[in-house]
């Protein structure tokens, strides 16, 4: 099945129904494997067991940023290629990305209290991620305020593309500024700076989170398509009601 055939919402719904149990199951297995590896991972010599917050904090951060990246690609799909399901993908991704960004901020804050002595600091990394979270809330508000879904889709697409400038700022904030947040340890030119005994559980947890994102996203896209069908049916019913036409 080519990607272009998925533009048909009914075909996508059929695929989603088949795919969703597998994605959910795979995510469960991924988390089971990941948590097992996390349990077996060594404690940090300085931070002790607290370092294991990283196995939730870092994947949540990656997925929060990936969510906005997905919205930007979907925005191109809406504005440039007029793909019928691109805006459904964007609308479905926004709350999930916002939730992961929020999880990243909260776990980071809880990690910062014992490690840095503070729940929050206004350094470049934390500030730019907070701005990302606010932009997520803004785009969700925009979706809900414009009533016509296709007009809302185009407006949200423009906003997603404008906000995409924040993603490289977040990524390179720890290099460009003096931050309390540590510099890049995994995605660097020189390769990961983490020992494999901690890198492997991190990657497995990241993959499990990715499967969770995919499952939630497919389910949310299915729900959005069904929601639009309900709206269309309600509109048709209102038009067919006696006395509604002059």
């Amino acid at each position, binding site marked *: 099945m080519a990607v272009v055939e998925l533009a048909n919402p009914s075909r996508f719904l059929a695929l989603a129904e088949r795919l969703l149990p597998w994605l959910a199951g795979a995510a469960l297995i991924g988390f089971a494997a990941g948590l097992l590896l996390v349990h077996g991972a060594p404690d940090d010599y300085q931070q002790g067991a607290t370092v294991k917050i990283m196995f939730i904090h870092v994947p949540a951060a990656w997925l929060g940023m990936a969510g906005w990246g997905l919205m930007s690609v979907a925005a191109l799909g809406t504005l440039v290629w007029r793909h019928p399901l691109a805006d459904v993908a964007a609308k479905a991704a926004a709350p999930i990305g916002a939730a992961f960004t929020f999880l990243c901020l909260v776990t980071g804050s809880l990690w910062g209290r014992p490690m840095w002595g503070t729940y929050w600091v206004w350094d470049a990394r934390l500030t730019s991620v907070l701005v990302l979270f606010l932009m997520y809330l*803004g785009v969700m508000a*925009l979706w809900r*305020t*414009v009533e016509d879904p296709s*007009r809302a889709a*185009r407006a949200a697409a*423009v906003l997603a593309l*404008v*906000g995409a400038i924040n993603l490289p700022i977040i990524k390179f904030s720890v290099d460009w500024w003096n931050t309390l947040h540590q510099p890049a340890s995994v995605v660097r030119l020189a390769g990961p700076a983490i020992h494999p005994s901690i890198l492997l559980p991190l990657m497995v947890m990241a993959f499990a989170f990715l499967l969770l994102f995919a499952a939630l996203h497919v389910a949310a896209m299915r729900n959005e398509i069904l929601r639009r069908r309900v709206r269309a049916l309600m509109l048709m019913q209102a038009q067919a009601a006696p006395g509604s036409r002059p």
Partner: protein
Amino acid sequence: MSPLVALFVRDVRLAVRVGGGGGIGVLFFLIVVTLTPFAIGPDLALLGRIGPAILWLGALLASLLTLDRLLAADHEDGSLDLILMAETPLELAVAAKALAHWMTTGLPLVAATPLLGLFLNLDAAASAAVALTLLAGTPALTFIGLIGAALSVALRRGGLLLAVLVLPLTVPVLIFGVAASNAAIVGPLPFGTPFTILCALTLTSLVVGTFAAAAALRHGME
């Protein structure tokens, strides 16, 4: 007179005659600066330290509140449809409108800064520094706000949504504007570093804001 110049002159004339622009923006700026000592307390030393930040926040909020006048009024009386259908490229048209908006709203804020600096215990050099950074930064606020105005142009209750969309994008302008002001007042950073970044942000927003607003208008109007 070319259509672009005519559009620019029209906007300036409307802003000056109809009001809701420069005058009330400066008045709001004044009120915000006046409210701050009530909230913080009259400690002059503290006010002097955070003076540039208060002035920048006041200018940001004053710019924000006048933004819905930029496009919504034209949408209501149908002029926006005419602008969209005209031969003049939409990007140039919105840029001309934004420029007129900045001249009638942003420039008065810059002009009011030295007086308001007095209320916040800023000496002449400090007020001048803040005014210079505002002069470089208020166009960025207008053009970034243009994006939000274009996105929310057809909404009836779009006012707060406009603020929610625009404010996260103006955070870098605010950061570097205040950094440049503080660099000029107390150092130790050289003034040039944050100031040139502020100018770069303004120039970038001139381009990004124009194109994003034109795209939003084109796709958003039925």
